[in-house]
């Protein structure tokens, strides 16, 4: 079985700062693998351990951050056998319907039985790429997969945790599934897997090689701005002697009643 696990590099959200004008500054935020996609990779690795003759290709689309050797080693140290990246300057800020089109071209070129994506990414959290990719490829596709129950040639059985119910689904391969964050606890790469990652093959493709000309801008991103803060009372008592605590407790009691 040939598995592709897709991932996106996103800025480390703990290091994003908000400027006075509400814009986000991601300059100090190093790119990291989107946490949801770590679950997708782990799901692929677990599946591989169950099936003989299984290979995993990690795949990503984006700008020059994907050239970074550390980021490449990071994804490969988590278990994929090889890596395919599609890099182009104009892929820097793709919206999901565009990402899905690039991934479609790359997946068609490499071939696949199963593509595993995360349900969303930590930046725009659009939650569309896996589903749109599957739909564009014309294969079975579904989101919110919370467990892979079994895999056999041509068929996958999964559990899907929805808002109010759980479904068990039989999916005919080829297919694209998007997994939820609770599907597994991604394992931490060991020194051995990190060292081995450096030797794994990497294929770098360009937009031209995939014959991707202009694709539609069904949606455009207008702005990304921090929301305005609500006005607060800002009554701050300095000191924790008995009387000061009593004063604070009074405010709390008033609010509770």
């Amino acid at each position: 079985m040939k598995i592709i696990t897709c991932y996106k590099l996103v800025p480390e959200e703990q290091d994003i700062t908000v400027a006075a004008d509400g814009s986000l500054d991601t300059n100090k935020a190093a790119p990291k693998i989107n946490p949801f996609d770590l679950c997708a990779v782990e799901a692929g690795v677990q599946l591989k351990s169950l099936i003989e003759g299984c290979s995993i290709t990690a795949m990503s689309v984006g700008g020059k951050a994907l050239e970074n050797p550390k980021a490449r080693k990071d994804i490969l140290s988590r278990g994929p056998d090889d890596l395919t990246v599609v890099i182009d300057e104009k892929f820097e800020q793709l919206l999901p319907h565009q990402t899905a089109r690039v991934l479609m071209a790359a997946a068609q070129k490499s071939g696949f039985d199963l593509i595993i994506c995360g349900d969303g990414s930590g930046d725009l959290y659009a939650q569309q790429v896996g589903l749109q990719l599957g739909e564009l490829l014309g294969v079975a596709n579904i989101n919110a997969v919370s467990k892979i129950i079994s895999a056999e040639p041509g068929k996958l059985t999964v559990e899907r945790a929805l808002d109010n119910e759980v479904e068990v689904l039989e999916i005919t391969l080829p297919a694209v599934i998007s997994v939820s964050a609770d599907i597994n606890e991604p394992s931490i790469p060991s020194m051995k897997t990190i060292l081995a990652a450096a030797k794994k093959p990497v294929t770098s493709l360009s937009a031209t090689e995939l014959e991707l000309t202009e694709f539609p801008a069904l949606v455009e991103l207008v702005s990304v701005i921090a929301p305005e803060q609500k006005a607060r009372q800002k009554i701050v008592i300095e000191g924790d002697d008995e009387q000061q605590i009593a004063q604070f407790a009074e405010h709390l009691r008033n609010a509770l009643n």
Partner: protein
Amino acid sequence: MSKLSNIWVFSDIASRLPEMIAAGVALGEKVSTFVIGTEADINAAFSYGATHVYYLGDKDSQKITEDYSHTMAQTISAAAENTLMLLAPTKRGKALASKLGVQLQAGVVNDVIEISIEDGIRAKHMAYGGLAIAEEKINSPVAIITLSSGAYEVQAADTARTGEAVSVAFVEPASTIKCVERRAKQGESVNLGKAKRVVGVGNGIGSQENLQVAAELSALMGAELGCSRPIAETEKWMERERYIGVSGVMLKPEIYFALGISGQIQHMVGALGSQTIFAVNKDKNAPIFQYVDYGIVGDVNKIMPALISALKA
């Protein structure tokens, strides 16, 4: 704001339908609702303000709701007009939204908190785990949106209202997903997002033993206990479902009480929806004090027991 001539609406969960229809009524002249279910479900759609119902038949245990995407896409494209489809922001709603997006070559935006129809359709949604609001403009003739709760006021049901109901034939999907079992989900252990009062615990709490004291204070307040990311992820003192902030829970309580939390924006985005914010922290320069209604600068070890006795009194 200008209105569209027709809005399409669907919710896979009955309780979310009134709000979707309310949004349809606010944004469109006609509100066409897809219904899967019984006659009672059709009547319910009319009672909430749907002007047209497109009936897709009874619930079928063999089918998954996503199998109806081709049926919906064909019905929408047959109408040949610039339009908007609104879906509930559930997992199924999002799956349908993306499938319809490809089938109708339509732009999709999920978890939308605000829609405007001025110069095309614009939609706002949270990005970067709540740090920012992204605004997107949909350029395609059909726009597809899953709409978050709370954006539109639900109209009271009026059983006197009726409309036109049309049966739609099922269009067999090309994909092959078979539902072999369906069961109710086990109840969630904690839903901080719906709690009226929340106590959040951060690194300043000092020790795991102190969590007991915080829990006692929280119980006295009738609050749920939550925490900052390091407490859940580094210390692992509390479950991941309890961490508040970016990529964690977003709160909307009446009272949020932060204990030993410094107040980095990554935590605060999860708490800023609170009506009133209280905080205890020993550092008077901690960013938390910029966001509070009432704060006290001092030692949690001293303040927590004192508050417990005060609340018991």
